[in-house]
């Protein structure tokens, strides 16, 4: 089989690269394509083999040579546009369309999961993270009419490497994953950063690294300017997300999905529970993780060492126990192709 994996963001490029490596290891041919990334990136990921704007992709001659296309776009609304344009062109040219597969890279739950599915309904195969997501989709689509064409759903695990790239550092290191728009309350992100600064000042033997989990421009500063920064609080340089996740003692975030990597790699997770379990804070997805704490319950950084690891049963349900995602994909695609053969 020849695969084309299309992506448009740092996390998506990285996931496609990992998937391509695994599929090639299984003897498949893989091409990665995607949009160029702008600004500083948290991940150090090589560019896709083919750099192209999404709007130009459906008509690209490369698409005539592939048997399956994986769509991993940040905004699932774009998937519908691609499918419409691509399948429309195939139909006009009298050519069969390649099998399309797609899915949210991060484990979604509840409203976010069903909203995501509703935007991917034109795909032939849907990938979700864990058994939790697969079961939820079964309930959420209960008794739907055939006319809605729900694609088969398989769970393929997480989007990041199964093993950490390095061991934790000897000196304690807290990695704080800072999100672009969460917490949503005005000024709350600055307040969180001030808290980190205050913790760092209290315990100079710790290093606190603040790491954006999204792209950023070189001119934007992260820390609020009103508090003098302590020496042991450092902003992470671009491209350091994965090695820092591997090196950290503990990883703190409100709801960054990258905290799942810290959980899987055995680092102490802290999901900030101060903003409650709310859809708008993306914290509903962390219900049950066993790592949600209020900041006021952590008096100082040394107290972090006493916090529990993530709830393993929950983590496995979200996809941690799936280690053969690409094989599952290959099997499901082969079944689909066999089914569709005349």
């Amino acid at each position, binding site marked *: 089989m020849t695969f084309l994996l299309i992506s448009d963001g740092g996390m998506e490029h990285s996931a496609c690269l990992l998937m391509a490596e695994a599929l090639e290891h299984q003897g498949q041919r893989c091409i990665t394509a995607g949009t160029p990334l702008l600004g500083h990136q948290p991940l150090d990921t090589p560019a896709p083999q083919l750099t192209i704007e999404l709007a130009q992709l459906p008509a690209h001659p490369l698409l005539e040579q592939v048997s399956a296309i994986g769509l991993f776009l940040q905004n699932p609304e774009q998937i519908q546009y691609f499918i419409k344009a691509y399948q429309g062109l195939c139909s006009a040219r009298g050519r069969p369309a390649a099998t399309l597969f797609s899915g949210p890279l991060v484990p979604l*739950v*509840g*409203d976010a999961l*069903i*909203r995501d599915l*509703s935007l991917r*309904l034109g795909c032939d195969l849907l990938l979700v993270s864990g058994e*939790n997501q697969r*079961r*939820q989709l079964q*309930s*959420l*689509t*209960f*008794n*739907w*009419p055939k006319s*809605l064409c729900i694609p088969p759903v398989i769970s393929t695990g997480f989007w990041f490497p199964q093993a950490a790239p390095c061991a934790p550092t000897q000196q304690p290191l807290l990695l704080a994953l800072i999100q672009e728009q969460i*917490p949503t*309350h*005005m*000024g*709350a992100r*600055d*307040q*969180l950063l001030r*808290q980190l600064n205050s913790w760092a000042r209290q315990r100079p033997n710790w290093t606190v690294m603040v790491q954006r989990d999204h792209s950023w421009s070189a001119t934007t500063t992260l820390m609020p300017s009103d508090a003098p920064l302590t020496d042991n609080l450092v902003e992470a340089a671009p491209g350091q997300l994965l090695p820092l996740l591997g090196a950290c003692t503990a990883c703190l975030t409100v709801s960054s999905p990258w905290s799942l990597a810290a959980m899987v790699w055995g680092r102490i997770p802290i999901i900030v*529970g*101060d*903003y*409650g*379990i*709310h*859809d708008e804070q993306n914290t*509903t997805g962390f*219900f*049950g*993780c*066993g*790592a*949600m*704490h*209020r*900041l*006021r*319950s952590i008096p100082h950084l040394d107290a972090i060492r006493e*916090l*529990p690891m993530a*709830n393993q*049963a*929950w983590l496995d*349900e979200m996809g941690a126990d799936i280690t053969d995602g690409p094989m599952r994909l290959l099997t499901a695609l082969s079944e689909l192709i066999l089914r569709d053969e005349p």
Partner: protein
Amino acid sequence: MTATASRPTLNVLLIADSDSQLLACEALCSAPTALNVHWTFSVIPRDGTPQALLLRLAQRGRLRHQSLAGLLRDSRLQSFDAIGVFLTGSKLNDIRLALQRERRRPLLFCGFNGVVLDHFIEGVSWRLGYDLICLSGPRDQQALAQLVAGTPFEHQRTVLTGLRRNAPNSDLLPVAQRLRRLVFAEQVIMPATSSERARVVRLLSDLARRSPNWEVLIKPRIAPGDATFHDVETHISTTLQQTLGVPPSNLRLDYRPLPVLLKQARLLATLSSTAFFDALDFGCRTIAISDLGLQPNYGCHVYAGSGVWRSLEVIPNLDALDAEGPSPDPLWLEWMGYGNQFSPSALLEALNEQKHQTPNPIPSTIGYPGNAQSSFNQLRLGAESAIASGDWSSARELLCQAALMRPLHRGVARRHWAVHQTNPLLRRIALLISYRDLK
């Protein structure tokens, strides 16, 4: 002694504020039961609560109007066997926390209003720790079980109370003998955009024109000036006017109570209202509108499996639809919680069984804070209690967390500054200046 007096007695208080929550209370106390239930309703005053609904409740039990703060201070709360709380998230927490401080307390239960279309996880996280959570049917029960599996909340007790909200009627006319009438049950925020709301009105108008021997009635969710949980930007009467100018003569608004309309109508159409199930109670046929597509934010994904998810645009006319006799899929009805096996009676029986047992405390495990103590309002109320008892350290902590959540909230910032003053005189003055009565 009368037969009534010999039956087991249950004293139940139901607390609610908005109209949809009061409707949920009304449905509960309509349940047939072998128990002798004394109902009391505590209504938290709110502008625009429909008077007709309050009058109906007053006929069923004792009706009180009390602010939440007044209610929490009311010593009569302890005299009930059970208290049912039908309020929004943070208030659910306020009542649970206030009562769980007592060594002996009534059983606490809560529920959802009608079909839960979205925010289920958020809603459940506010309700965990109640002695009983009422759910509609297997759909909600399965979602909750999946959510709490492997967590300290795994043993949360639930009871299925179903979606049959109206007492059985013996005087219902067979559909064929009813007026040729379709009722559209409007929802205030579904659909939400003015263009989609206009589209629905246009679809109804076109269907009315294609069906001149039928009446199409739009039943507004609320009358102009009344209020519900959600704010209404443009009342449906305005949308009707702005969309059609002059509607066809067989399309009009009707403000009569929904049960009155449903008893006389042959058909009900809705996007995703719980009125779908009320219609079935009144022997009316139902369809869910699919013209806006599968929009999960409007709950369309829930009704897509109903077996009667239909496009108004493709219905030739209402005679054709009527002749077809649309009927929801029984499998789906059972999944949702509509059927004789699901009834609020199950709640009353469970309460009666548990009323002499000591209620379980809420499980508290590190790493699972849920939504308890995460409400901004609650943090402020907690801080006020701490201030009243001179517990400055707790007051500072609670206000610090509230300030973390809303750093730009001036009231909290002032109060936070006040409790940080170490000079007692200065602190007292600062507290006086920064005082606000928190409702």
